[in-house]
C-alpha cells in the first residue's frame, strides 16, 4: 500500500510537471530593481488593506484573530530569553580578547538590514549567520550550529538593534553578484521534493491560506522577522532552520545550512523586501 502511494504520488508529480513545463525562453538579463517592484506590487495588490510595513509580521497580518493574539504575545515575547542571551554573548570577549564587535561595521550594532552582503573578494553571498561563524573561527573559537540556540540568540540581538531599519540589500556592479541573485530567484521558484512544491507555492501563491493548522506567511518581508521563536519548534530558529525545515516538509532532502543555494536564496528574498523594516526577532505559531 505504501509503495502504491509513493508511486502514485511520483506519477502525479510527473503529470503535474508535464503540464507546468514552460517552453524554453531566451536567456534574459536579470533586472533586480524591476523584480523587487513587481514582487512588492503583487503582494500589495493581493492584500490591498495591508500597509507595506505590515508584511513583516507574516501570518499575524493576514488574520485579525491572530493579530490580536500576537499583540498580547508581544507583551511577554517568547524570544526574550534568547535576546538576553544574545546580548550577553555579543558583549563577552573571545579568549583572545577581541569580540564580535571587531568583526562588523559599527561594532555590529544596527547593521542587520545590510545582510546578506555580496563579498566581491570571495565572489559569493555572505549572510549574517555565516559572518558570525567566520568571526568566531577567525578569533580561535569553534563555530556554532547554524540552526538554533547560540546562533539564533546572536542574530536575535543583532536584529533587535536594527529594528525599524529598512532592508538595504545591495547588488554591486559585478556579474557574479547578479548571478547569485538570479540563482536565488531560481531556487525560490523551483519545485522540489516529492510534494513538488517550490517556496513560491506556499509563500507567493497561497499566503493567508491554511496549510493544515498553519496560516502561510507571505514571502514579502518573511526574512525581516528572523530569527523567530516558533511554538511548533518549541524554541528559536534561524533563517537556516527555516530553509532546511521547509525543504524537509515538502519531502526534499535539505542541503547543508549555508550551502551556496541557501545563501543565494537569502540574498534574493532579502533584496525583494528592500525598504521593509527589520522586525526581528519575531514569534510565530
Amino acid at each position, binding site marked *: 500500500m505504501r*509503495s502504491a502511494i*509513493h*508511486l502514485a504520488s*511520483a*506519477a502525479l*508529480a*510527473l503529470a503535474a*510537471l*508535464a503540464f*507546468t*513545463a*514552460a*517552453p*524554453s*525562453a531566451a536567456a534574459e538579463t536579470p533586472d533586480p530593481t524591476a*523584480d523587487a517592484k*513587481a*514582487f512588492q506590487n*503583487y503582494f500589495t495588490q493581493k492584500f490591498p488593506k495591508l500597509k507595506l510595513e505590515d508584511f513583516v509580521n507574516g501570518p499575524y497580518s493576514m488574520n485579525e484573530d491572530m493579530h490580536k493574539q500576537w499583540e498580547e504575545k508581544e507583551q511577554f515575547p517568547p524570544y526574550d530569553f534568547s535576546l538576553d542571551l544574545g546580548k550577553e554573548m555579543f558583549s563577552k570577549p573571545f579568549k583572545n580578547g577581541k569580540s564580535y564587535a571587531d568583526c562588523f561595521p559599527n561594532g555590529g550594532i544596527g547593521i542587520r538590514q545590510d545582510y546578506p552582503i555580496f563579498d566581491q573578494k570571495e565572489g559569493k553571498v555572505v549572510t549574517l549567520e555565516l559572518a558570525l561563524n567566520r568571526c568566531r573561527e577567525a578569533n580561535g573559537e569553534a563555530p556554532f550550529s547554524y540552526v538554533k540556540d547560540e546562533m539564533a540568540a546572536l542574530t536575535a540581538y543583532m536584529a533587535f538593534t536594527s529594528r525599524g531599519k529598512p532592508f538595504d540589500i545591495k547588488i554591486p556592479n559585478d556579474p557574479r553578484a547578479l548571478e547569485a541573485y538570479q540563482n536565488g*530567484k*531560481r531556487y525560490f*521558484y*523551483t*519545485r*522540489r*521534493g*516529492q510534494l*513538488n512544491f*517550490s517556496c*513560491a*507555492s506556499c509563500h*507567493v*501563491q497561497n499566503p493567508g491560506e491554511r496549510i493544515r493548522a498553519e496560516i502561510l506567511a507571505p514571502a514579502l518581508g518573511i526574512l525581516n522577522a528572523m530569527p523567530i521563536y516558533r511554538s511548533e519548534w518549541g524554541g528559536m530558529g534561524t533563517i537556516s532552520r527555516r530553509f532546511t525545515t521547509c525543504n*524537509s516538509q515538502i*519531502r*526534499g*532532502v535539505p*542541503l547543508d545550512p549555508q550551502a551556496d*543555494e541557501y545563501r543565494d536564496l537569502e540574498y534574493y528574498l532579502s533584496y525583494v523586501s528592500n525598504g521593509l523594516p527589520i522586525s526581528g526577532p519575531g514569534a510565530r505559531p
Partner: protein
Amino acid sequence: MSKMATSALASILLIAGAPSVRAASSEADFKAAYAAAEAANKQAGLLRDQWTTTAATVAAAKKAADSGDFDAAVASSREAEALAKASIFQATSEKEAWKALEIR
C-alpha cells in the same frame, strides 16, 4: 457455462495467478536492484534534488535484505529507484519550468 467460456475463465485465472508462482528473489537480485536505486539517487543528489522518501525507501530495502527478505528488499529497491528517477525528472524539467511561477 460453455466449454469455451470455462476455458477462457481458466486462462484468465491462470494469468492472474501467475505472479504468485514467480521465483523468490535472490540476494543477487537485491544487489542489482539496490545498486540501480543508489545510482539514481546519487544522480538526484548531483542535481541537488533528492527526496526524503527515496532515502527512506532505500533504507527499508537494506533493512529487508539484512533480515533475509529479498522479495521485500527488491520491491523496495525498485520503488526507491522509481522515486529517484522521478526526482531527476523533476530537477531536469524545473531548469526551465520554474519561470512559469515567477512574479513579473
